[in-house]
Structures are given as C-alpha cells and as structure tokens.
C-alpha cells in the first residue's frame, strides 16, 4: 500500500531534465515521508481493520469452523449450504428486494416532497424544519421501540384511534404482511437527512429558469417536470443509490421490531430466531449474526458476509461512476 501512496518518489527521473540532484532527491524523500506520516493512521486502519479481515473472511468461507475446534478445509460446502439449504437466506434476500423497491422508492419520493414543502413554507420555516428533522435523530433502537409501542395491536395509540374511527386496524409488527410496511413507516418518519439534502438542492436551482418557464406559460407541474427535476436529478440518483446501500446494512430496526413484537427476553445466549413474524423482517446482516454467533457456523456466516460485500461494492461503484463529483471535489 505504502508504495503506491508515497509521493514523488517515482516522479520520473528521466523527465527531470538533469534533475535528481541530491538536494531535490532529498526533498522528494522528505515529502514522501510527510505524506506517509499524515496518512499513517488510516494506512494502519485500512490494513488491520479492513484488508486483513476481508481476506480472512474469504479464507474462512471455505473452512469449517465453529470457534472451538480448529478450522478445517471443506471446500465449497458452506457456499452450497447457504444457497441451497440455509432456510433463512432466500427470505432475507427477498425482503431486501422488497425494501429496495418500496422503502427506498418511497423515501426518495417523500424526502423530495417534504423538501419541496419546506422550501414553500414562508411562515415559521425554522420551526417546521426542526420538527421535520427531529425524528431522524432519534436513536434507532429508541425509535423502533417507540414504533413497536405506537403500532402494537393491543394497547397502541395508532390502532386505538383507527378503531375509534371505524377502520379495521392491521397487526403491524405482528403480521407478516404488515411488518415491512410498518418498518417503511418508521423509515419515512426519519426522513430528515434526505429532506435537508433535497432542500439544499432545490434552493440551488437557478431562479431564471423558473421565470423563463413561467413566461412560456408552463404550468406548475410542467415547471417541476422540466425545470426542477432535471436540475436535481443527480441528487435524486445519489439518494437512490445511498438508499440501496443503506438497505444492505439494514439491521437494527428490523431486529428490534421483531424482538420486541415477539416478546423475546434479551440476555446472553438468548436464542432468538430472527425475522419475526414468519421471517418477514429478516435482512442479510441478521444472517451473519444468526450463523456466526447463534449457530457458531463461522464459515457460512462468512459466505453471507461476502454476498453482502459484493452487493454493496456493486452499488458503491455505481455511486462513484454516476457521481464523479463525489470523488473529484473542489478542484
């Protein structure tokens, strides 16, 4: 790693036009050393907490290892097990697809809507913005516990109100077909991050374009469609791709929702089969925990970890390609 990062050292001695004098070489070496010194915390972090464990994950995915007896080679066994026999893998992948299709899409639409709304509000803007933003800050465990209470079919205020006005209330986190919509609702509640990003983007749209469109007699919808949307499309793209990446990491909320709704008591060694109700809240990261720390099958856990790695890397690559700006900042 250090070889590629150190500056100047290979700055092309041929091109140096009689350079390479001792003083210049010394200065280059000094600059390389300086870069190396400044980068060193990350270089160590990258090696010890990223590169080494990633290679190690690949290695363990081909081993049988339960954490107690010595690891032993078992070829593609873990891979075959995860894809063909592990009962939780495909439900988790299906749930992830559902969340990408519904939760991410709704979050982008809702985030844009709330962003638009906040740019139109002229009275009490600061208060509205703070109120809209606040739920984003609620710690995920606390927010999920709150929603598990608000939506619980027994005593929850939401169902109390719904039934009082004569609507047949759903079972939310206790009903396999309503648990993901309930999680989506929780995700829409915490829209603050997207709202702020969209708000900034909307305020950056040049005013003259709106004025020109208005002179041409464009309707409000046409102005949105042909002026606003093209201007903010990179941000929409950014929101979609980061949303997908976040969905790959979606862990705490579905796990807590399932645990609280199922009434499982936490503690060391608790065997909670994740995904309550009926595997409907399973996500890929939960499988790593289930395989590695509940079933003590480290090898298969590493297989799922690599699937997760492949998916997030693919979408990150997409993000960096579509938004070169993310990388080339400033200059």
């Amino acid at each position, binding site marked *: 790693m250090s070889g590629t990062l150190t500056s*100047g050292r290979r700055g092309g001695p041929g091109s140096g036009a009689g350079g390479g004098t001792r003083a210049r070489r010394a200065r280059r070496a000094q600059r390389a050393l300086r870069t190396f010194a400044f980068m060193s915390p990350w270089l160590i972090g990258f090696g010890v907490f990223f590169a080494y464990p990633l290679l*190690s994950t690949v290695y363990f995915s081909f081993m049988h290892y339960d954490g107690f007896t010595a690891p032993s080679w078992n070829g593609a066994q873990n891979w075959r097990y995860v894809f063909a026999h592990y009962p939780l893998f495909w439900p988790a992948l299906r749930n992830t697809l559902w969340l990408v299709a519904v939760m991410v899409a709704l979050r982008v639409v809702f985030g844009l809507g709330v962003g638009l709304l906040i740019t139109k509000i002229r009275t009490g803007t600061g208060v*509205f913005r703070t109120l809209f933003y606040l*739920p984003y800050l609620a710690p*995920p*465990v606390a927010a999920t516990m709150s*929603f598990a209470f608000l939506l619980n079919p027994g005593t929850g205020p939401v169902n109390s109100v719904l039934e009082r006005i004569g609507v047949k209330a759903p079972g939310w986190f206790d009903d396999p077909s309503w648990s993901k919509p309930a999680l989506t609702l929780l995700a829409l509640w915490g829209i603050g991050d997207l709202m702020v990003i969209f708000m900034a983007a909307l305020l950056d749209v040049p005013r003259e374009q709106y004025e020109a469109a208005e002179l041409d007699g464009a309707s409000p919808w046409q102005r949105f469609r042909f002026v606003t949307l093209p201007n903010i499309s990179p941000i929409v793209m950014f929101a979609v791709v980061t949303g997908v990446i976040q969905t790959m990491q979606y862990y705490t909320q579905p796990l807590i929702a399932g645990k609280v709704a199922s009434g499982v008591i936490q503690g060391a060694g608790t065997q909670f089969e994740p995904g309550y109700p009926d595997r409907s809240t399973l996500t890929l990261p939960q499988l790593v925990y289930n395989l590695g720390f509940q079933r003590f099958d480290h090898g298969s856990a590493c297989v799922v970890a690599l699937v997760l790695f492949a998916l997030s890397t693919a979408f990150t690559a997409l993000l960096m390609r579509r938004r070169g700006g993310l990388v080339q900042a400033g200059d």
Partner: protein
Amino acid sequence: MTQVLDKPVRTLAPAAGERTARRRALLEWVAVHSLGVAAALFFTLPFVFVFLTSLMSDTQALSRDLVPHTWEWGNYRKVLDTPGFLTWWRNTLMYAGLGTVLTVVSSIPVAYALAKFRFRGRNLALMLVISMMMLPPQVVVIPMYLFWAKQLDLSGTLWPLIVPMAFGDAFSIFLLRQFLTTVPDEYVDAAKVDGCGELRTLVRVVLPMARPGIAAVALFQFFYAWNDYFGPQIYASENPGAWTLSYGLESFKGAHHTDWNLTMAATVLVMAPVILVFFFAQKAFVEGVTLTGVKG
C-alpha cells in the same frame, strides 16, 4: 409549487389582476401551511404519545388510553434506579466521548493529506476510503470478533469498538476532506512562506477555518456511537456491566414484560440527550448532512 408570490402576472387591468394574484397567493399560503401542519403532526405525534405513555400508571399503561389520568413522574425515578441503567449511561458516554475524540484526532491528518497533498495513489486512496465508508460492518465482523475475542481476550468490553477509532474513520475522513478542499490553497502557501511546517500550518491555519466541518464530524461520530447496537451486541452482550444504553434499552421491554410505561420512560431517557445536543449544535449538524450529499 407555483411562484405567484413573487411574480404576479399582469394581463388584465392592473387592479383586477392584482386582486386575483393576491387571492391565489393567499390560497397557496393556506394550502402550503396546512400541509406543513399535517406533516408536523406526523413527525411529532410519535414523540408526544411516547412521552404521555411514559407518565402513565402501571394499570393505565395496559389500557388503550391516550392521556395519563395521573402524571407518574416517579416512572423516571424507577428507570434510573433500575440496576445497570446508570452503568449503561457511563459506558455509552465513554464509548461515544472517547471514540469521538480519537476519531477526530486520527482522521484530521488523513483528510488533510487527501485534500491538500499531491501524491501518487491519492485518488485510489480516496476511492478506498469511500468503499470502506459504504461497507456494512457485518462484512468483516467474523474475523474481527475472532481477533478481539480469541487473540486479545477483550470480548465483554467496549475496547474492540473504541480502539479502531484511533485509526481514522472512513466517513469522518471523507467528510473532513470535503470540507478541507474548500480551504483556499493561498492560506496554506502563505503559512508555508512564513516558515510554518506542515503540522503547524495544519494546526494554526487550516483547522481554525475548518471548525464547522470538525464540529459536524464530531457530532456524527458521537451519535453513531450513541446509536450503535450491532457493535455492543457482538462484543459486550455477554457482560451486562459493559452494555450501552442502545443495547440495554431493549432488555427493558423484556424485564418489564408488559410495562410499556417504564419502557417508554427509558426510551425518552435515551432520546433526550441526542435531541438536546442537536438543539445546541443544529447548524453544524445540518451543514454536515448537506455536505455529505451536495457539495463535492
């Protein structure tokens, strides 16, 4: 959505046109602000109901009432007196506080190098930082756990979560780097002409200008640690003495099986500090969120 407010269209006689324009503007104001109030209710009512339930008596918490008959402030006392709760507070403060300091101190030089030095592999390094930032922590958790638990015997503590923060955090590096690229090179060069070394230039000239960026990074990191559930679950679950608030909170529902009132009181106590911190540092925070998405 319409822009009538700023630019009334004058096609009819001025007076009549102005009147319709003003009426449209008023209608729009009402529509926009009604929507605003509806949205505000959606965002705040969950907090309100959680808070109201946290003040109900045990028996009332089992009912479908929305507002407490008697206001049981003692619920909060009971939560604070629960064995372990104050320990979780202390652990959370240590994880979040120490972690934030270590992250900021170790990420600044890296971000500075990525923003201001020219060297081979800089873009590659930046791409790797972004990749790390996007990586779910579960991808490398098995070898990491084996490393901390089997080789260093540190499971049952929060050290496996704190120590790595001394080696730069990808998200913080990225955010700081975005911020530092906006510091004009002229300042850096001027400091060097004045005979400042690289480190002095960074500390004396660049950092004071990057204060908002540093504040945003510190806040994000603090909240990250405060909210983290997966980390403590992996490394601290076996030892309740090392639990954090986010991890311990869930055990509340288990221990107080049906007592939503106490569970909600505990929930409020976990949310409150974050929201308080936000009110004191709102600007830095919002700026930071914007920086992740828009600038660059």
